[in-house]
């Protein structure tokens, strides 16, 4: 089995199993190319799988993401390595060689049935990164309920080596002797679909994230709105109270030279409006206020969606938030400049959501050994012919798809991923090998 993995040949290496990586892989596979999809996380699905509903259609994100995920996972032309990282890529003649590290999950994927017996007996609790630290998880765990593959993994750094999981596993899938495996892959083209990173709200200290208990970031709120949510309802973390006066601070970490990111992240206005609409549904008595600079409701159906939220009663305040402070009862005072009235004002809220923006994923350049793919001014992968060949990068045979090149919403990521698959296929056909 392991020998089979060594020195394997594929047509295309796709790095990143989020929505863009999946779309590119599926298109290529449907056009008859052999694809290796490498995902660094335990499951494919990227960020989209963790979202609640998506704007402007309010479709359930999982309803859209899961069929695509299982189609990707089942496609005969797609091989997936999860929990794996691309160590280096280098050119070899007309082809590329990459070394991929399959990291040990200490659970044999093919044996694990996802029954979670191990998870229940594990005595270790650590913050659950898939719930953005709102609750804990075990050291051995099925990452999240919609994970694909839906099998357990052991977080060895937090494991106390008690062996309880191994004893209880009905299929003897747990194997502490697993080691990292290095696999050499040959391929003709690569798609970088490594996505974006969220702005770390700690880097905007005037908003008090991490210090004030009821300042959360937008992904934490997103999780609170998902049916598989960490709490039983939308609650504020400080004391489990249902909030009744929620504020959104837009452009947290975007359009902000003071944090080094002057770009607009494209999605925060719309996801905040969407969350506000969902909150109005979940908490009918709550007030929701959105502090904004400009509302970027530009896509198909977005403007109509924005209008709808106004008629639902979401309050929009045009003003840049300067500072947030905490009161004794854990409420928050938002200090902002009201642009309509031209003065500095303060308002009290019992929960503040920071609409964090997108930042480039810094892992990309490290994946290349000799020649490195060029980055643009803001460290996103540089598109060298943006209007004619949007997926083309500075290196021949290396293409970019989705938010690795620029912040994008889901529909635009999918289209950009589609474009990359077309460009890759025609490139390979021209290569003629």
């Amino acid at each position: 089995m392991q020998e089979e993995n060594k020195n394997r040949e594929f047509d295309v290496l796709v790095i990143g199993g989020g929505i863009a990586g999946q779309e590119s892989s599926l298109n290529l596979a449907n056009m008859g190319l052999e694809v290796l999809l490498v995902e660094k996380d335990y499951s494919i699905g990227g960020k989209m799988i963790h979202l609640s509903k998506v704007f402007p259609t309010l479709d359930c994100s999982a309803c859209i993401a899961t069929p695509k995920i299982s189609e990707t996972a089942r496609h005969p032309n797609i091989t997936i390595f999860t929990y794996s990282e691309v160590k280096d890529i280098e050119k070899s003649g007309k082809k590329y060689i990459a070394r991929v590290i399959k990291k040990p999950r200490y659970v044999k994927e093919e044996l694990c049935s996802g029954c979670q017996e191990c998870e229940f007996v594990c005595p270790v609790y650590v913050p659950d990164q898939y719930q953005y630290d709102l609750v804990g998880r075990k050291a051995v765990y099925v990452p999240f309920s919609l994970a694909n593959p839906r099998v357990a993994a052991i977080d060895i750094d937090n494991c106390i080596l008690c062996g309880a999981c191994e004893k209880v596993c009905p299929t003897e899938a747990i194997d502490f002797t697993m080691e990292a495996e290095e696999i050499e892959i040959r391929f003709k083209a690569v798609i970088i679909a490594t996505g974006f990173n969220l702005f770390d709200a700690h880097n905007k200290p005037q908003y008090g994230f991490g210090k004030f208990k009821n300042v959360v970031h937008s992904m934490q709120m997103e999780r609170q709105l998902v049916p598989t949510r960490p709490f039983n309802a939308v609650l504020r973390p400080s004391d489990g109270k249902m909030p009744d006066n929620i504020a959104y601070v837009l452009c947290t970490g975007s359009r902000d030279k003071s944090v080094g990111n002057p770009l607009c992240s494209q999605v925060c206005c719309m996801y905040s409006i969407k969350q506000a609409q969902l909150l109005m549904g979940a908490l009918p008595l709550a007030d929701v206020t959105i502090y904004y600079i400009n509302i970027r409701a530009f896509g198909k159906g977005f403007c109509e969606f924005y209008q709808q939220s106004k008629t639902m009663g979401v309050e929009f305040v045009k003003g840049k938030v300067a500072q947030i402070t905490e009161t004794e009862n854990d409420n928050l005072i938002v200090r902002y400049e009201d642009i309509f009235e031209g003065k500095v004002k303060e308002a009290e809220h019992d929960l503040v959501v920071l609409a964090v923006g997108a930042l480039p994923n810094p892992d990309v350049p490290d994946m290349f050994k000799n020649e490195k793919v060029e980055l643009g001014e803001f460290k996103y992968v540089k598109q060298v012919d943006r209007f004619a060949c949007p997926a083309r990068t500075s290196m021949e045979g290396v293409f970019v798809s989705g938010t690795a090149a620029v912040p994008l919403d889901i529909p635009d990521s999918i289209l950009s991923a589609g474009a990359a698959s077309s460009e890759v296929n025609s490139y390979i056909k021209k290569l003629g090998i």
Partner: protein
Amino acid sequence: MTNPGPKILVFSTEKISDPAIDLAGLLKMHYQARAYTIIVPCSSAIKPRWVMFAFEQGFDGVFIAADGTDCPYDTACTDKTAQILTNTQKQMKERGIDPARLKMAAICSVCSEPFVKYIKSFSEYLSQNN
């Protein structure tokens, strides 16, 4: 032996509501074991005769776990399924069956909690009105 409770036939849909029912099991959310699922491609494809047949055969209630607005086939799915419900309930009245024994709710692919709640309350209703 105690009364095992009412028998419910659930029509779920392959891509949307059945995954939610699966997820309910995955999360070990409990509901009445006497709720049985038949999967169809889309909730707008359920024939009233099947529902009537289920009552004839002795089911106490029928629950349609509809696609709602997440339907992959038709944006008008909610209305179409509702139409099926209305038509069937008319037939039920004609035959002296309480129309409330047929229930429908949109269940998205992760709406496990609502599903369990619906089945519990439906089951309660059926027990009380037996």
